[in-house]
């Protein structure tokens, strides 16, 4: 069965079910303002430059991690290239006190939340399953089983609501994961319990090799609306639009509104993972189409148009990105090897006698080689 291909100026060689509705867009491809935009956003040079800075750093981190995988230093890497605007724009729309439940590709979000390169890469080097302290960054560890984190976020938000804490919980989910029953259960429960949670769906159009049109016959934001959520459909490669849309939804949720759902239309520029071969299932024409819609390029044009990108600042940013790359590499290579004793220790809060016996047998066996 061949996909029904409709070339559309925004969607590209399309596989997205078209609702007769274009996503909200603040910046056009050339970096000029889109007069049709309904979103409210006070764009200051500080905001635009800081968003650009974080996207540049995220891309450089992603590139360095990709190289480290190719050099055998990481077991696997899941690139976020192309999704920097969706991730930085949404994460920056939250308050520091708000909680984030990511999927597994939210490296730019982790960077925004102050997760250190070593903490981020440890999992992909095979040193641990979750490298950072969730409480410190108010960001839960990655969830690799698709959609499971949406229920954790919903439950956490039920607690926030019971505590009357005024926090917002934001969870990331991809287009593919929306097919999981857990996601539908989460959308439904969040709406029924009116919990302060925002579902941020990065529709990057591909679930490994499966097109979004194979996942759903209905636009994802429309499905969420059917559950009773407050939804917005936004151009996910437009960081200013993402920031404005997420801020709007998050603040309505914080004020006691129904849970929110942001569908950000973006594109996964790399393969699903470093083990993937996207040339087997998508055309170079399609990839090139989205390369021309790169989120960094678009914001850079906007900065240039406004005279907000002086050479000294850009040069400083280049230097910062190169330093980050060097830090990422050094931190990766310096990661300590994991110890099985630590896994024993983390299995139960209070180690059982049975587990202590097994651990002792393991240790004695290891020591027998000394």
């Amino acid at each position: 069965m061949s996909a029904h291909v409709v070339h559309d100026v925004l969607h590209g060689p399309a596989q997205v079910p078209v609702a007769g509705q274009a996503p909200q867009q603040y910046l056009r491809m050339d970096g000029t303002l889109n007069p049709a935009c309904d979103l409210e956003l006070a764009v200051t040079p500080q905001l635009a430059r800081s968003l650009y800075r974080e996207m540049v750093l995220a891309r450089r981190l992603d590139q360095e991690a990709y190289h480290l995988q190719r050099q055998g230093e990481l077991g696997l890497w899941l690139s976020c290239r192309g999704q920097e605007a969706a991730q930085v724009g949404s994460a920056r729309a939250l308050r520091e006190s708000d909680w984030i439940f990511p999927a597994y590709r939210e490296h730019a979000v982790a960077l925004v939340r102050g997760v250190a390169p070593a903490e981020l890469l440890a999992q992909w080097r095979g040193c641990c399953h979750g490298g950072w302290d969730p409480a410190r960054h108010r960001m839960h560890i990655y969830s690799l089983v698709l959609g499971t984190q949406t229920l954790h976020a919903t439950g956490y938000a039920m607690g926030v609501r019971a505590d009357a804490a005024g926090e917002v919980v934001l969870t990331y989910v991809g287009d593919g994961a929306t097919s999981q029953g857990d996601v539908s259960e989460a959308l439904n429960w969040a709406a029924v319990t009116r919990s302060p949670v925002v579902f941020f769906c990065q529709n990057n159009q591909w679930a490994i090799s499966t097109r979004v049109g194979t996942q759903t016959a209905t636009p994802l934001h429309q499905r969420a609306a059917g559950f009773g959520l407050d939804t917005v459909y936004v151009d996910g490669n437009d960081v200013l639009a993402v920031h404005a849309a997420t801020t709007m939804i998050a603040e309505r949720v914080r004020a006691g509104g129904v849970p929110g759902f942001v569908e950000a239309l973006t594109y996964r520029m790399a393969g699903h993972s470093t083990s993937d071969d996207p040339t087997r299932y998508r055309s170079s024409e399609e990839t090139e189409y989205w390369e021309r819609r790169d989120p960094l390029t678009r914001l850079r044009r906007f900065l240039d148009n406004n005279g907000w990108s002086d050479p000294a600042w850009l040069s400083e940013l280049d230097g910062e990105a190169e330093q980050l790359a060097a830090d990422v590499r050094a931190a990766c290579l310096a990661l300590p090897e994991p110890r099985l004793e630590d896994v024993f220790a983390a299995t139960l809060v209070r180690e059982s006698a049975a587990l202590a016996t097994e651990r002792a047998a393991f240790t004695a066996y290891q020591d027998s080689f000394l």
Partner: protein
Amino acid sequence: MTPGSAAAPTRQLSLGKALNAGLRQAMLDDPSVVLMGEDIGALGGVFRVTEGLLDEFGEQRVFNSPLAESAIVGTAIGLALRGYRPVCEIQFDGFVYPAFDQIVSQLAKMRARSGGRLTVPVTIRIPVGGGIGAVEHHSESNEAYFCHTAGLRVVACASPADAHTMIQEAVACDDPVIFYEPKRRYWDTADVVVGSPPADGLALDQARIARHGSDVTVIAWGPTVRTALDAATVAEQEGKSLEVIDLRSLSPLDLPTLTGSAARTGRAVVVQEAPTFTSLGSEIAASITEQCFDVLEAPVARVGGYNIPYPPARAEEQYLPDIDRVLDAVDRVLAH
């Protein structure tokens, strides 16, 4: 109430009511305890275990869930991460499978996945086993799935007194606990000391020698403990002395108590409702054999369900271990 105080009132309670009183005590002792599950509010659950708790504690702490087991456990994990101590009711044993991923991949592994940083003190109550003439999916014994999963504690109560204390200890435990309730024993009635667990009582992960004996060790848990005790009474009339162990903790196993008894008697029989193939009984038989091989007089015998789907209600008497099947196994190990 002071734990173990002499003033603690003793009441005649059914196992179901003893659980209800235990949950009530847990909620009084810790305001972070919340109850969630299908129909647990105004109805009090299909077995009435949560009866009256909505009225006493309000809908912030006792709430009905939409009918989605994965969501019950998944949101309980989120609540636990927020600092709550959720107690989930799964309505019947056969309904737990939609929550399997959330239990096995999320709840059980959350602590290890986070390098010990995260604690998820969730208790999952499951009415378990057959014997009540139920329709399909309402009579299963699925403990092996959860015992096989590192990071979970799995327990089964067998008597009203243990039901009352064990549910409180499970709720207070910082590890996730699968709490099995023997549904055909919900109406068994006995004296229960109502209140917080006594400080000198058994720990949640300890087995209990329910009856002392010298010829054969019979190991049972949940609904088969009474079967084993009844078999011991009959065996006594035949001049055979059975030691009955109520396992209580299915994971971790209290192996010292099991092997200590098996070493004294030299013979052991494991009695369970679950099919014996790759079951908890198999693990117990293997462990006793490994540790007591030199003093065993006979191979460890297993009595349990057959390796077939749980049968229709009118055939379940043929499937469930009863006194005669236990005594038959006792005779086999004594024949060695």
